C-alpha cells in the first residue's frame, strides 16, 4: 500500500495556562492519503484546530509539541526553519474560517495571489500575474483580470472565500487544511464552495483536511472522518461508518442533536475545557450510557471493523448489532 501523504502519531500539544500547562491535544494518531478529503469533526475546544496548527508549527509561544508527523518523507515537527518555510504555503496550504481576516484588507487581490508564487516558485511578475488570473478563473471568479486589481472588501463573503482558496491553491499544494471554510457563509454560497473543494480534489488530486463541526458538510465531502472530543479522537472511519453507523455515543449525540428528522435532542452540558478534562473517558459525564468503568478507565481507539476505530468501553451502539450478526 502506498505511503500516506501525512501520517501523525502520538501528537500531544500543551499550551501554557494560568495554572501550568494544559494538554489541548492528547496523543492523536491519524493519516491523510494523497487526494483524500479527511474530515475532522468536533465541538469548539476539542483540539481539532490546534492539531493542524501544531503540524504547521503555528502555535502561540510557549506551546510544546510531542509526537511524530511525517509529510511525504519530512518530519514536520523537527524540520529546520528553512525547510519548513518551503513546506508551508507551497506543499501544505491553509484556508481559514473568516476570509476577511485571512486576506489583507489593504493589498490588492493580485498582490496577494502573486507574492508567494514569486517567492516559492521564483516566477517573474508577468507569468505570476497570468497564473493568478488562471487561479481566479479556476475558483470561478468572474472577470479575473479585473478582480486582480480589486481589494477584498469589494467582494462578497462567498467570493472572498473562493479567493482565499485560490491563494491556497497558488503553489499547487498537496494538502489544503480547511478550517471551518464554510461556517461563515450562507447555505447557498456554502454549497458552491463545497462543489469547488470537491472539484479541486478530483481535478488536481489535492488532499483536503476538512475541519468542521457541521456534520452535513462532513457528509457531503469527506471520505474518512475522525471525531475529536476533549483533545482525543473518539471515533474514526469511513464517512459511511461514522455517519450512518456511529459507534461512539458522542458521535451519535452530535448527529442526533441537529438531526433533520424529528424533535430536537440536544446533548446536555458542554465539552470540558482542556484544564478540566474529566478522568476516564472524557465524555462520560455527558454520556447517557456511561457506567462506572467509563469514569475509571482511559479509553483507547480499537478497531470494531476494518478501518472503523472506536474509543468506548461500553460500546452500547454496536454491541447489540454484533450479537445478532451470524
Amino acid at each position, binding site marked *: 500500500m502506498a505511503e500516506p501523504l501525512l501520517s501523525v502519531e502520538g501528537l500531544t500539544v500543551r499550551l501554557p495556562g494560568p495554572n501550568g500547562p494544559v494538554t489541548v491535544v492528547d496523543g492523536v494518531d491519524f493519516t491523510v492519503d494523497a487526494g483524500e478529503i479527511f474530515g475532522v469533526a468536533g*465541538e*469548539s475546544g476539542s483540539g481539532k484546530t490546534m492539531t493542524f496548527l501544531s503540524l504547521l508549527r503555528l502555535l502561540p509561544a510557549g506551546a510544546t509539541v510531542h509526537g511524530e508527523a511525517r509529510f511525504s518523507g519530512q518530519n514536520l515537527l523537527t524540520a529546520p526553519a528553512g525547510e519548513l518555510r518551503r513546506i508551508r504555503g507551497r506543499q501544505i496550504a491553509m484556508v481559514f474560517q473568516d476570509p476577511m481576516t485571512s486576506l489583507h484588507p489593504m493589498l490588492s487581490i493580485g498582490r496577494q495571489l502573486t507574492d508567494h508564487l514569486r517567492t516559492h516558485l521564483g516566477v517573474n511578475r508577468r507569468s505570476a500575474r497570468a497564473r493568478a488570473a488562471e487561479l481566479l478563473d479556476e475558483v470561478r471568479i468572474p472577470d479575473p483580470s479585473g478582480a486582480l486589481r480589486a481589494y477584498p472588501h469589494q467582494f*462578497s*463573503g*462567498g*467570493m472572498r472565500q473562493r479567493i482565499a482558496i485560490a491563494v491556497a491553491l497558488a503553489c499547487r499544494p498537496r494538502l489544503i487544511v480547511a478550517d471551518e471554510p464554510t461556517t461563515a457563509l*450562507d*447555505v*447557498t*454560497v*456554502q*454549497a*458552491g464552495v*463545497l*462543489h469547488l473543494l*470537491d472539484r479541486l480534489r478530483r481535478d488536481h488530486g489535492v488532499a483536503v483536511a476538512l475541519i468542521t*463541526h*457541521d*456534520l*452535513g*458538510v*462532513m*457528509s*457531503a*465531502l469527506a471520505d474518512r472522518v475522525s471525531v475529536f472530543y476533549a483533545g482525543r479522537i473518539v471515533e474514526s472511519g469511513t*464517512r*459511511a461508518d*461514522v*455517519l*450512518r*453507523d456511529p459507534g461512539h455515543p458522542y458521535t451519535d*449525540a*452530535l*448527529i442526533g*442533536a*441537529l*438531526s*433533520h428528522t424529528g*424533535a*430536537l*435532542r*440536544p*446533548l*446536555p452540558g*458542554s*465539552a470540558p475545557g482542556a484544564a478540566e478534562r474529566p478522568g476516564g473517558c472524557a465524555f462520560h459525564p455527558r454520556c447517557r450510557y456511561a457506567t462506572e468503568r467509563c469514569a475509571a478507565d482511559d479509553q483507547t481507539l480499537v478497531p470494531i471493523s476494518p478501518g472503523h476505530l472506536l474509543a468506548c468501553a461500553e460500546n452500547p451502539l454496536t454491541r447489540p448489532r454484533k450479537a445478532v450478526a451470524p
Partner: protein
Amino acid sequence: MSVLSIADLHVDYRRRGRPTVQAVAGVSLSVEKGQILGLVGESGCGKSTLARAAVGLVAPSAGTVEFDGSPTTRLSRGTRPAHLLGLQMVFQNPYASLNPRRRVGAQIADGVGARSRTKVRADDPRVAAVLELVGLPTSAAGRYPHEFSGGQRQRLAIARVLAAEPSAVVLDEPLSSLDASAQAQIASLLVELKDKLSLAILLISHDLSVVRQVADVLAVMYLGRVVEVGPTEQIWSDPRHPYTQALIGAVPQPDGLGTLPTALPGEVPDPARPPSGCRFHPRCPEAIARCSVEQPDLTVLVPSGRKLGTSIDTPIGTARSAACWLRIDTEAR
C-alpha cells in the same frame, strides 16, 4: 390579535451621492402569542434590518410596526416608552451585548427593575427566578459574563431580556455564534419559553436546519421581500417558491451518503440596484417572461391536492403564501 404586526414595511438607507438601498421593500408579517415565526434568508437580504425596525431601532420609511396595538416608533436617545417594555430584542453576539464589567445578577436586576419601576438588587429572588427559567444556577448571578461559555452567555442574554417580562421577543441570529450542541440547547430553550410564557417570538436566522425545528411558521426573505410564508413543516416538505426550493436544497444532510448539496448559481444582487420584476428572476431556474417585468405579491395559495384549506381571513403568516408568478397563475385563489 397579533402581538407584533408588521404591515407593508419599507426601510431605506440613504447615502449621499449613491442610490438609495431598499433594505426592506414592503414586508408584512405578524407574530401571535405562543408562536415562533422563523425568518430565514441569505446575508444581505434585509432580515436584520427588519428585526431592528420591528423593535424600533431603525426608522421605517413607510409602513407600520405595531406591538400590542400601538406603533413602535423610532426610539430617541435614552427614552423608551413604557408600553414598549414588553417588546425585547436578543442580539447575535452575547459577549458584545452583555456588559463585561458588571456581574450577571446586576444586569438582570436592571430588567426586573424596569418592569417594577423600583430599584432591584442583584440578590432579589426575581433575578434567581429568571436565571432558573433559562436553565442556569442561581449562583450565576455573582459571576461575570466572561466566566461563561458561548451557549451559557446566550442564555444570560435571554435571561436579561426575560427579566422585563416581555410578551414579544425578537432574536437576531441568536444561534449562529454557537456550536452545534449549544445551538440545539438554545433552540429547545426557546421552544420551552414560548410554551411556558406564551411568548411571541420572531427568530431571525440564516440557518434553516435549526429554524425548521423550532419555528411554527416560516417566512423566507429575498432581497428585502418575503417570498414565501407558511407553516414550517409544509414549507419544508413542499416548498413552492423556487428560492425556497434552492435554500432547502442547499442544506447538506448528515446522512453519510456523500451527496453534494445543490448550488444556487449567482450571488444576491446589490440591494441598491434590485432587478426589475421579481427580484429573484435572474437566478431563478424557472423564470418566465413576466417575471422580469412585473413584481409578484405574496398571494395565498391553494394547498396542493386540496381545493380549500385555510380561510382567507386567517392572519398573515398562517396561510400558505408565495410571491411567484408560476404559482400565482396556477394556484392562487
